[in-house]
Structure formats: structure tokens, C-alpha cells
């Protein structure tokens, strides 16, 4: 009888309460997690058929959903490994004597134009365009070499033949097609593909650059908030995104909790925003921690383009692009942490950067929390649920039981007290299939796939 919710999909469908079930989990079971295995980004492609993950070791793993089997038409296909490759390697910045981590900060898929799939992956300094293509036939019958590649002795060639293509076992190849390097002095936090499918932006702490996908040796700087005197630095860029259908519009969020919307038609350098979104602060509630907890860790537009969502340490805010003065909706993710901020500051958890995502029709939003909990908020029904990604609930098709954290006082049965939360088990990265109730949730080193129960 554990009912929670999602959405059943298309416009006009009844919004039922759906139950979320375990589907798959990827990754090692053992507790000894190598640094390199820490998942750092998760992203579905535009059809939801492919799911990409990046990790701290610079590797990308792409999963592909199997087509629905004819025997079990009501069962969605599993996600299995499609391709894996080393995207970035560690480098050494000789001028600054600092290491450039190979950790993949973001992966963004390009809309598909032909049989191949393209994605952008970035670490702190360098963005790469990868082409993932399938090869299922190969040419055989060369004149000058054998099928295994060895060269034939020309003297033994007595007849001329035309090589023909023969089928072979499917091979998925990933090759780097473009490398966009040396354009960022600071650490890249976001990349976002424009709706024009020709350009994309990349942002670091102080600057945003606009690239053309074909051109690697030049980019345009469109935002620069570096002060002439670094002592005057008060704010940095934390995330940025292009509008989903207006190719001239993008937003960037800051460490002070503000979002600026820029229109590239206004001027070449978008230092002056077109719109400025910030919720006025209640001076009575201000504390030492206020500025840190108001720092925005993720910003993304709704699929409709009418709204944007921001995530700060304790909450999710939904903004109507037509209203700059305050968000239209605010959801508390883990309000009970307010009484733990001192220790969260001491163990640096207060600086954790949580991401958030929309479901396909923008009716539900999701984000992660600690103790391997993640939260969903239904905007229409004003309901929310806390679920857990854990190996204990990993029987196929088992329904996830909602979790509850008690913030003090009387703890009911099945509730977990704030003091027993494991702050090392953080869910920072989640993704929602663009068209279906399938979600990917990354714990430290495991990837969970959940789906709603189909009857």
C-alpha cells in the first residue's frame, strides 16, 4: 500500500499515483570505493534510449535500452552497456603547478541527426566532442592484404577482385571528433548545447564562452565577471544553460543565489543581464550560513521553456521567466539539516553541489540528498516523497518504500533520525528519461535505474 507518484506521461492522460520500482543497479558491490569510480555526471539522450555516465577517472560509460521484447510487451527493456571509453586524462598545468583533474564534470548529448550519436564531455579545462557510431559490416576481399590485415606478397596476386562488405559482429566505436581546449582559466562547471544545434556554451567560475561545434581554435567570450581587482570578488558563476527553444537566451546562476538571464541579441558581451532573478532575503533569518546555503548548484529550464529550476543547498526553487522578484514555487529538500549546519560546515558537506531535474512533462521535479535518499516533488498535486537507492531494496520490480526523516522529538517507527544519516552517501546526480517514467540515480559509485510499475 505504499503509493507515491509520478506522472503517467502524455498530455491528457490522467495523472495517476504511480509506484516506483527497482529495475537495475550498475557498479561494484564492495564498499571500498576507488576515487576513480565516483560517478560525477548522469545524462539521458534526447530519446532516452541512451544513458551516459561520467566518473572521476575520466571515463564515460554509455548504456542502451534494449527494445521491448515481443514476449513481454509490458516490460521496458533493460539498460545494458553500449560503449565505454576514456574521455579525459589527468594533465599537469605547468604554469600553475596544479593538477588538472580528469573528472568528467558534465556530459551533454547533441540531438541526433544521423545514425551516429554525438556527445560533449568536459573536465575542468577541456571540452571534447565524441562520436559514437556502430559498425556492423566490414570490407573483405582486398587485393593487397589478407582479411586479417597482413600484407600479401604482390607476386602472389594473380587475379583482381572487388572488395565487398560483409556483415560482422556489432562494434560500437567512440572517437573524439573535436577538442575545445585552452579557453578557460578557471574550472568549467557547465556546458549547454544551443537549440540551434550549431553552438554551445561553456562556463567557468568567472566567464562564459560561446563555441561553434565545428570550430575548436576560437570561442567568443559572452560573460566576464572577473573584477579588475580580485580582492573585490564577491560572486562566482555556478551553472549556466541555454534556453530550450530560444537560441538567443541563456541563464547563469551565482554563488549568491541570483540568476541572470541574458539575451545575445542585446550585445556581444552579455555582462548586462536582460533579467535578474533573486529572492529577497528575510533579514531576520540571515545567519553566517545564509550565503553559503543560498549558492545555486544547478539551474535548468523546463522542457516547455516557460520555467527554470534552481537548486541550492536546502531547497529547490521554480521560477517563472516572466517574474524576477521571487520564485513561484519553493520546495524544501531536507529542512532538518538546518540544525546541523555547524557540523556540515566543518565536514565541508555544506559545499556539496546537488543537481536537480524535471520529468518529461515538467510536472514533477527530482533531486538527491544524503543517506542515499532522493526526493521527488509533484508540482500539481503538491505532494512529495523521499525514496532510497540501496542494495537492500534491489529485488527486481520491488516497489520502493517511502522514507521519512524525523528531525527530533518523537521518532516514529520506520523513521530515521537526523543523527543517523550517513553524510558520505550523497546522491548528487539524477536524471529523468525525457519521455517515460524511468529515472537514473547515482550514488557514490553505483548507478540505479528505477521505473514506475506497469500493470
Amino acid at each position, binding site marked *: 500500500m505504499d503509493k507515491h507518484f509520478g506522472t503517467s506521461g502524455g498530455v491528457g492522460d490522467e495523472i495517476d499515483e504511480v509506484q516506483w520500482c527497482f529495475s537495475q543497479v*550498475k*557498479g*561494484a558491490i564492495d564498499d571500498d570505493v*576507488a576515487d*576513480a*569510480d565516483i*560517478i560525477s555526471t548522469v545524462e539521458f539522450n534526447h530519446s532516452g534510449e541512451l544513458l551516459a*555516465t561520467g*566518473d572521476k*577517472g*575520466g*571515463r564515460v*560509460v554509455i548504456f542502451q535500452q534494449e527494445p521491448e521484447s515481443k514476449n513481454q510487451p509490458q516490460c521496458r527493456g533493460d539498460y545494458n*552497456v553500449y560503449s*565505454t571509453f*576514456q574521455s579525459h*586524462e*589527468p594533465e*599537469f598545468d*605547468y604554469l*600553475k*603547478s*596544479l*593538477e588538472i*583533474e580528469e573528472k568528467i564534470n558534465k556530459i551533454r548529448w547533441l540531438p541526433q541527426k544521423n545514425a551516429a550519436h554525438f556527445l560533449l564531455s568536459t573536465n575542468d579545462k577541456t571540452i571534447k566532442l565524441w562520436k559514437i557510431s556502430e559498425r556492423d559490416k566490414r570490407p573483405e576481399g582486398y587485393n593487397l592484404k589478407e582479411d586479417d590485415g597482413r600484407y600479401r606478397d604482390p607476386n602472389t596476386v594473380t587475379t583482381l577482385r572487388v572488395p565487398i562488405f560483409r556483415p560482422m559482429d556489432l562494434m560500437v566505436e567512440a572517437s573524439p571528433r573535436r577538442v575545445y581546449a585552452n579557453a578557460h582559466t*578557471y*574550472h568549467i562547471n557547465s556546458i549547454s548545447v544551443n537549440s540551434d544545434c550549431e553552438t554551445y556554451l561553456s562556463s567557468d*567560475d*568567472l566567464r562564459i564562452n560561446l563555441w561553434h561545434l565545428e570550430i575548436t581554435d576560437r570561442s567568443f567570450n559572452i560573460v566576464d565577471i572577473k573584477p579588475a581587482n*580580485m*580582492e*573585490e*570578488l*564577491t*560572486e*562566482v558563476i555556478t551553472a549556466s544553460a541555454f534556453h530550450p527553444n530560444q537560441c538567443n537566451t541563456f541563464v547563469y546562476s551565482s*554563488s*549568491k543565489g541570483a540568476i541572470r538571464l541574458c539575451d545575445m541579441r542585446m550585445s556581444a558581451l552579455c555582462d548586462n543581464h536582460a533579467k535578474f532573478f533573486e529572492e529577497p532575503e528575510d533579514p*531576520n*533569518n540571515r*545567519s*553566517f*550560513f*545564509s*550565503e*553559503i546555503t543560498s*549558492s545555486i548548484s544547478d539551474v535548468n529550464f523546463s522542457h516547455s521553456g516557460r520555467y527554470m529550476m534552481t537548486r541550492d543547498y536546502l531547497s529547490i526553487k521554480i521560477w517563472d521567466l516572466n517574474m524576477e522578484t521571487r520564485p513561484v514555487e519553493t520546495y524544501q529538500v531536507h529542512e532538518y539539516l*538546518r*540544525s*546541523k*549546519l*555547524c557540523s556540515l*560546515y*566543518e565536514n565541508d558537506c555544506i559545499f556539496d553541489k546537488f543537481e536537480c531535474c524535471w520529468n518529461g512533462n515538467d510536472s514533477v521535479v527530482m533531486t538527491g540528498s544524503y543517506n542515499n535518499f532522493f526526493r521527488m516533488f509533484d508540482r500539481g498535486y503538491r505532494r512529495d516523497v523521499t525514496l532510497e537507492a540501496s542494495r537492500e531494496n534491489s529485488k527486481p520490480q520491488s516497489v520502493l518504500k517511502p522514507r521519512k526523516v524525523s528531525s527530533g522529538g518523537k521518532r516514529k517507527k520506520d523513521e530515521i533520525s537526523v543523527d543517523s544519516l550517513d553524510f558520505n552517501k550523497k546522491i548528487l546526480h539524477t536524471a529523468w528519461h525525457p519521455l517515460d517514467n524511468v529515472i537514473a540515480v547515482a550514488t557514490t*559509485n553505483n*548507478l540505479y535505474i528505477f521505473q514506475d510499475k506497469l500493470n
Partner: protein
Amino acid sequence: MDSRVPQAFGCWPEVQDKMINPEKAEEAKLKARYPNLGNKPGGSDLLRKRLQKGQKYFDSGDYNMAKAKIKNKQLPTAAAPEKTEITGDHIPTPQDLPQRKPSLVASKLAG
């Protein structure tokens, strides 16, 4: 003094504050532990630390040595190095430095 606090409560305004605002209580705790903490948490010091994240190395040789040490720790079954670890007893020569090979270990997600 907040004159709106009814005397019948019998508590100081600060305690009243903590009941209403747990954040302020946490702030008091932090200030008690670190009295020298500045008042501007988001100030340029914190931001500048954020801009330069990462460990500074002396030079690329130092960096490669550190990388090799980590690699040896993660692969305990690797053959023990014939030469003793160089930790600053003498100036290393190019022959002493372990070759840095790119990490070709596959992701466990793909396993």
C-alpha cells in the same frame, strides 16, 4: 531585548531565537568553536580558495612521483619496485622516475 517576548516564558530572547531559528543556534556553535572566524563567509577568501581548487605541486616531477605513488597503492599485486622509493634522499634522475602510463582500467559500471 525583544519586548514582545512575554515575561511569562521566563527565557532570554536568544533562547527564544534558537527555538525559532535553528540556523542561528548553529552559527553560535560555530563561532564558539572558531572565534576567529570572519563574518563574511562568502567573502573573497572563500571564493579565491574555490577558484584555485586542487593540490599545488612543486613541479611536474613532483606531480608524476605523487601519481606513481598512488598507482602503486591501488595495485598492491604489482611487482615490488626494484629500486627503493625516492623520497628526497637524492635528486632523482630520469631513469629513477617510474613511467607514467595512462589509466586503462575499465569502469566498474561496465563490468
